[in-house]
């Protein structure tokens, strides 16, 4: 659908031999979900038979509204509990694990509606996210010498990330004063403070002006280039085709297709899911 930028070619290497079919096994999966099902009353929001997320690449998760993408995110990261099913992260079962522990394991998510901490300065938003802070323990927190050195190291790391995400001049501003796009940037930068292996981005481009989308895309690719795994939900097909190495399509809670961006673009099941069986004006609808 769109031309790839030449700077970051897709990582097809490890998945070159993988068949583009739903639930296919991958050579080096970081996240494996099996038989995960979640229903709300009579509605089955998520019913994933099998899905593997390959390590070290960008996986795009697409699907029409109500396909269960965000619910799937919530289930994987412990923000919701499935009716049944199991899922493993780095070969460790996460079933029943509370969300904060999932984050500490190295799987960090962002939210569709950005959750910046409005009445905290940008730098405090960043510093909060560092893990294993000794000063976060009640009694230790009362004795600054015990945590000051770590705090300084965290602040240095936060400053570096803020520079990388072009937020450094907003350092002391309350996060609530940032624009929508800047909040998305801050949320992404903040997630990196956790040093995650797997970053789950829920609609990172939603509500961001086109100029900033390019910058955000570069940052997402940057995550992959420094060795992290990225899963992201997105509606804009141009964006999906541009940065994904692999695309998974959900519809009505199920995985209906997966494959390289090229194969997904021509997949009849995907086109049907988006447009219904009868589709008269595919171009218009697909980009809407």
């Amino acid at each position, binding site marked *: 659908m769109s031309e790839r930028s030449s700077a970051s070619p897709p990582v097809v290497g490890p998945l070159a031999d993988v068949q583009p079919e739903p639930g296919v096994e991958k050579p080096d999966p970081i996240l494996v979900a099996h038989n995960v099902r979640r229903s709300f009353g009579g509605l089955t929001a998520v019913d994933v038979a099998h899905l593997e997320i390959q390590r070290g690449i960008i996986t795009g998760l697409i699907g029409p509204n109500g396909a269960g993408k965000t619910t799937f995110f919530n289930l994987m990261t412990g923000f919701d509990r499935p009716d049944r099913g199991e899922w493993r992260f780095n070969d460790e079962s996460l079933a029943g694990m*509370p*969300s904060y522990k999932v*984050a500490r394991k190295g799987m960090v998510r962002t*939210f569709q509606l950005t959750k910046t901490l409005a009445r905290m300065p940008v730098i405090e938003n960043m510093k*909060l996210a560092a*893990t294993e802070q000794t000063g976060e323990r009640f009694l230790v*927190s009362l004795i600054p010498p015990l945590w000051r050195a770590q705090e300084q190291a965290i602040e240095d790391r936060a400053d570096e990330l803020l520079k990388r995400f072009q937020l450094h001049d907003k350092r002391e501003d309350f996060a609530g004063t940032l624009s929508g796009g800047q909040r998305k940037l801050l949320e992404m930068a903040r997630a990196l403070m956790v040093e995650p292996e797997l970053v789950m981005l829920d609609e990172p481009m939603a509500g961001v002006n086109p100029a900033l989308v390019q910058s955000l895309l570069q940052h997402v690719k940057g995550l992959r280039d420094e060795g992290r795994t990225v899963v992201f939900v997105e509606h804009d097909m141009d964006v999906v085709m541009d940065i994904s190495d692999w695309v998974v399509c959900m519809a009505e809670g199920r995985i209906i297709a997966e494959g390289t961006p090229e194969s997904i673009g021509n997949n009849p099941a995907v086109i049907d899911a988006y447009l219904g069986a009868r589709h008269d004006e595919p171009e218009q609808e697909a980009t809407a």
Partner: protein
Amino acid sequence: MDFERILIDGLRAAVGPEAVIYALAAIGLNMHFGYTGLLNFGQAGFMLVGAYGVSITVVTFGGSMWLGILVGLLAAAFLALLLGIPTLRLRADYLAIVTIAAAEILRFVFRSSAANPVTRGVFGQQQFADAFYAINPIPEGAYGFWLISFGSHRRLWVIVVGWGLVLLCCLLVWALVRSPWGRVLKSIREDEDAARSLGKNVFSYKMQSLVLGGAIGSLGGMVLVIFQQQNHPDIWLPLVTFYAYTILILGGPARVFGPVAGSVIFWFLLSSFDTFLRQARATGVVPPELLGTEALGAIRLATVGLALMLLMAFRPQGIFGHRREMQLDV
């Protein structure tokens, strides 16, 4: 009209035990509401268990008052755990409902005849703080400074120890909220899902905040009954909690000294307003038939309510808060 009298009465309350008691209660609420975003509407319940920890230990079991203070603190911590475990995983409103109900349940249980053998029910408990006054180093007499009257040496002793406690609690809160621990609390206030997504054990931090703020509130309860040398269930009406909230919002939530300033100002205004009304009545500025003695208390209450409403409408950040911060879209 004697304006000096109005001023004197206001100042007397502003530095007196009332201001100390409510400053402590509001510091506890500041921990809950100001820094963590927990809606505790049962601060009176925490004060009650603190107060009864002292009076029951001494009167019912003949223990030492100092042991009683420890019992009171532990009882407040226990109450926090009891209320927190079922509700802190739920939305903030549930804690509000549970705490206000629990405070009232406690009051009714402590005043019931079934509890008579332990709490002496509606008769209350008296004379349990002699140990506190026995170590009073201040020579007998009446004390004052300029227009400020401290009252007897006993009252001054309560004032000195009380403000010392307030200062200690402020120091504790100050040290906590500037640390990474306090940063986690504030993040929970802003958005607990965000805190969770960054690996913070939200439930544990809310519980720590609830226990700490409840314990500070219980200190306020202890100061009250030690000052009065009597404890009674009906001291601990929900009104106490609402006074404390008014004070917190007046001073400015999430400011270390907000509750202290709020309490001083609140008691100055309340007390001087009281004297003003009485004088208005006595001097005939307001005809006595319009303002009966029984109406004084009601007008006082209505004025507090009105002040709280005006405050929320025109200065929701309190006296020391930042309006810019309050108005950020959350």
